[in-house]
Every structure is written in C-alpha cells, then in structure tokens.
C-alpha cells in the first residue's frame, strides 16, 4: 500500500472561465448587470460582496443552474449556454453542503464516479485517495449524520474533487463553522488548491476570509463588479469608496473640493487639507464637488502638537478620546473638531496618551484617497442613510 499519494495534476491551461457582459434579471429586478470577468486557469478567485450583491447568482450561472438573460459564459473557450450542468467540467461545494444523507461517506464520494461508470477497483482507489487527501482517514463507512461540521465540509470537498473537475465552485462553504475551524479549513482549502491546481471560484461575504485565501478578489455590489485585483491591490488602491469601506477599516472625512490646481484642496470637518491630485486619480474633481477623503487607520500618525510637520505630511489638531491596547497594536480613537477618527499604531511606538490629551495627527499626503460619495444604492450595503 503506497498511501503517500501524489496529488492528481492537470494541464494548467484547463479550467479558465470567461464571462462576457453577463446580465441576469428576474422580472424587472436586475440582479447582475453586464458583468465581464476573466478567471485564469488554476487561480483561486473570490467573489466578495455583501448579501444580495449577485455573487451567488454569478456562481449559479457558471454552474448552469440558471441561464443568463444576456451575455455568454465560456469555459476553456467553449460557450456554455447550451451545456447542461451535468456536462460542465465543474464541481461545486454548497453552502449547506448538500451531502446525501442516505449514503455513507465513501458512497457520497463515489457517487460521481459511479455515474461515470468507473470500474470498481479504480473507484475504490480514488475514493480512498481523496478520503486521505481531505484528512478523513478511517471515516469512510460513517453515516453523514455521524460527522462533525468540519468533517462534513471535507466530505463535500472530496465528493467534488474526486471527479477532478477543472473548476471548483464554492458557495460560502465555511460560513456555518466556528472561527477556529474556519481558519483551519481556509488553510486546508488553499493548500489543496495549490496541490491540485484546480481553478477555485469561492464566494464569501467575509472580507478577511477573502483576503486570506485568494489570489484575486472580485468585489461586487448591487450586481456590478466594483473592482478586480489581488488582495493587496484592493486594500491599498481601492477604486471607489465602496471598495475602500468594504475591505478593511477606513476613516472617512466627508468634505468639499475648494480648488484644484497643482494640489487638491479639500475642506472637511476635521480641517482643510492640501493633497496631491494623484490621490483623486479615479475621480477628476472640480471645485465645489462633494468628496470623501479616506484614510486607513495605520496611516494616521500621532505626534506632539509642538513638533514640526515633516515635509509631505498633512496634519490636523485632535484630542484623544480613548485608547485600546490589543497586544502589539493600539487603537486610538481621536476627535478632530467633532470628526471621529481611528488610528492604529504599534503599541511600543506610542507614548502615554491620556484621554483628553491634545495631539497632532499627521498622515502622508499621498496615503489619503479621495472618492466621490457613495451612491444611495451602494450606501445601503453599510446600513448608512443615503
């Protein structure tokens, strides 16, 4: 028995998805509006967005459970419009897992192989190989009801992967698990994806999960793709206020453009700031426009009010409201002329900051991002009033 198996490898060119101008409407309600997306073979892509943003609809379109109102979906260059689900080279892990309760673990995993009329010995070999790959050794004869949540998760994964699909669709499969198990399975998923080089399309509303496991993230809202990029790109260079707010934490300073020249002058509740025009490169503002300055908490430094402002830095006077030490990091809540802000700093680098102390906050002028305010429909995703 050579149990140390080599994972099945595949031709890296297989498993690409091209989505062209795909829209999906139910009656008058358009849940997906001309989405175009290229998913390269072998990548781990996450569709991220608040509930109702269309991410699950997109996944179900790729699976073929529903068909697009407009547009085409190609897998490996082949138009999938007329291809029924069971003929598509895909696997899928469902949010509720959808394991067959009347089958044992190995029967669940063998289901797809049986349909493909795999011979008994080969089936046996592949089932036990995948039971091992997902770490379920010795549980093959168990009933589904006898498994824990994490084990069920692994069965669902093995059941899809045993067929060696070139694409695996995952619809929030981890959302029902507790945090620790979730972390563990996130790593397991990433690991398996790397080994098999299968294209993974993962749906989640959890931005932390998305950043942790994906090669690329597609941020969606209201049926539109807001931004596509690596987790790093999306965090440091968001396209708009929605993406900026949805990924990570951000301080928002709503204000008005005073003038646009060599610099962009913006007046906010916390003071007026001169910023390089490059920070608004997505916007092209003119004087009088309403804009929002976004600042990541870690970009806001806290300085002595008496100290001189370094070149390239923008500063404002503020007052300490509260500090909260979370291990190596400290969150400082500040107030600058009535505007609340949060700064996150290394605990070691901070001096004592009693509540009420006057300080000066400073940030690099090019660390700020200036966006147009959220449109009303996007604002609802955050529960803001429009």
């Amino acid at each position, binding site marked *: 028995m050579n149990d140390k198996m080599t994972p099945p490898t595949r031709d890296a060119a297989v498993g690409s998805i091209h989505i062209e101008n795909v829209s999906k409407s139910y009656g008058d309600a358009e849940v997906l509006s001309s989405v175009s997306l290229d998913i390269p073979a072998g990548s781990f892509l996450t569709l991220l967005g608040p509930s109702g943003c269309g991410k699950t609809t997109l996944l179900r379109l790729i699976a073929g459970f529903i068909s697009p109102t407009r547009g085409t979906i190609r897998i490996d260059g082949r138009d999938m419009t007329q291809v*029924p689900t069971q003929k598509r080279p895909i696997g899928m892990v469902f949010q509720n897992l*959808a394991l067959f309760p009347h089958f044992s673990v190995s029967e669940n995993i063998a289901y797809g192989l049986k349909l493909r009329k795999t011979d008994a010995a080969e089936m046996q070999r592949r089932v036990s190989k995948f039971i091992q790959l997902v770490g379920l050794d010795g549980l093959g004869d168990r009933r589904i009801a006898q498994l824990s949540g994490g084990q069920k998760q692994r069965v669902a994964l093995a059941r*899809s992967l045993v067929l060696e699909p070139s694409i695996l669709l995952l619809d929030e499969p981890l959302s029902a698990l507790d945090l620790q198990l979730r972390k563990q399975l996130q790593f397991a998923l990433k690991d398996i994806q790397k080994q098999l080089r299968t294209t993974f399309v993962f749906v989640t509303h959890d931005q932390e999960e998305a950043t942790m496991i994906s090669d690329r993230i597609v941020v969606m809202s209201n049926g539109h793709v807001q931004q596509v990029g690596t987790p790093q790109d999306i965090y440091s260079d968001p396209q708009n206020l929605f993406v900026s707010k949805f990924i990570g934490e951000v301080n928002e300073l709503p204000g008005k453009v005073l003038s646009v020249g060599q610099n962009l002058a913006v007046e906010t509740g916390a003071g007026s700031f001169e910023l390089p025009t490059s920070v608004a490169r997505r916007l092209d503002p003119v004087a009088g426009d309403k804009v929002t300055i976004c600042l990541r908490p870690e970009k806001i430094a806290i300085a002595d009010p008496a100290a001189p402002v370094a070149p390239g830095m923008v500063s404002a006077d503020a007052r300490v409201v509260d500090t909260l030490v979370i291990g190596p990091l400290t969150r400082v809540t500040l107030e600058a002329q009535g505007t609340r802000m949060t700064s996150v700093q290394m605990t070691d680098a901070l001096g004592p900051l009693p509540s009420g102390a006057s300080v000066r906050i400073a940030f690099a002028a090019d660390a700020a991002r200036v966006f147009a305010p959220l449109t009303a429909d996007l604002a609802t995703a955050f529960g803001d009033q429009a």
Partner: protein
Amino acid sequence: MNTGEKPTLAKGLMLLPALIVLGLFFTSVIMLFSNAFVDRGGFSLKYFEQILARPDYHVVFYRTVITSIIVALLAVLLAYPIALLLWRSEKHRNMLLIVVLVPWLVSLVVRTYGWIILLGPKGFVNAFLGWVGVIDTPLKLMFNDTGIIIGLTHVLIPFAVISILASLLSIEENLEEASRVLGAGRWQTFKTIVFPLSLPGVFTSLMVIYLACVGAIVTPLLLGGITEKFVGSQIYQEVMATFNMSKAAAWSICLLSLSFVSLVILKFIERRALRGQE
C-alpha cells in the same frame, strides 16, 4: 419552583376530560374482549370457532387484505406524481393542496353516492365509453371489488399525497443540484436521490391507507356487492342486522390481530428498505 401548590387541583381538573375519554375507550375495549371471549359466564372460544370454521368467512378476510393491499399500492402510485407536482410548484403549493383536500370537506356517504352516479350501469363512465364506442355492454364497475377499490382509493389518496409531500419537503435544499453537478441527469437524480429520500412518506401512506382500508365499512357497504363483504361491513352486519354482539366482537378482535400482524410485516419491509437512512 414558581408553580406552587395551589394550581395542582386545577391541573388535576384539567386532566378530567381526557381521563373520561380514555376511561370510556378502555371500558369499550374491555367490553369488546369480554363479549368475544365470555360465553354463559365462562371463558370460551366459541365465537372464534364459528368464524374460523366457515370457508366463506375466510374469503371475506382474503378479500379485505388483498383489496386493501391493492388500494394502498394504487393510492400511493397515483398520489406520488401529485405530491411531486405540489413539491415542484412552490408558488401554487397551498392552492393545489386545498384542491387535493377539498373532497374531505364532503361527507364520506355523499362522496360514495357520487361514485354510484359515475360508476353505475347507466352512470357517466359507462355512458361515455358507450358513446365513444369503446364498449357495447356496460362495464360492471360497481357492486363488486372494482367499485370498492375505486371508492377507497379516491377517499384515501389525500393521505398519501400529504405524507409523501411531507417527505419530499424534508429533503434538504440543493441535493438535486449537487447530484447534477456530480454528473447525474434529472431521471438519475430522481432515482438515486429524491425517490429513496421520499420512501419514509411512501411507507407511512402505505401503512395508513392499508389500515384505513382493512377497517372500512361505508365504502364496501355502498359500492361492494351483497356477496363482496369486507371484515368491516361484516361486523356492521352482525351489530346492526343480526344483533350478535359477541360474534361482532370476535370479528373485531380478528380484524385487530390482522391489522397488527400486517403492521409488523410492513414495518419489517420498511426497515429493510430504509436501511441506512436515519
């Protein structure tokens, strides 16, 4: 702790109606047994011997059992597609369910008379078949086993629809989609996933309908012939026509034992069929 001493009496009083009903029930069962097993003050199997000795009574038992099995199978067979339809049509499910249940709003006797109108020698069905030219002489659809089967199946189908639908509705969402993603077509998915998971409902309906049939009185009385007797109609006759309470009681106990034995057999079959399902 906060349910103090005082409410105890009130609680006891609230149990009273239930106790009266239960008391009457047990009294009737005890009287049934004493009627059947006691003759002239002593234990006797006389009435059972009277029943078991007569070959024409054996036929009544066979007819009851075989007809009931046929009705149970037929009702489930006809109810299954209806249940599937109701399961699929999420939007109109409640409305369709009402359509299925409407016959229950009409009294059993009235419904059976309805069948007489439809099935009689000059009834609608025969008139229609004659008009179309399929038959020359009217079919005998009534006052025989056919009439009993049609009548009982009609009365009992809603039971089957409801219990099969309940089973279908308890199937976890997405199982069909999961099966299709794994490569199964619609028929394959039905065969290996949906149908096995709906079996509990199928067995429940078989059991309920079989038991309801075995004890049926009105339908065999009205749609069956004079010679086509059921155990139920036989008991009715003993009580209402010949006033032989003891023999009726013996019949009832035979019926009870018959139902019990059938139930055990059916449960055994169910256990084997559902092996592996919780």
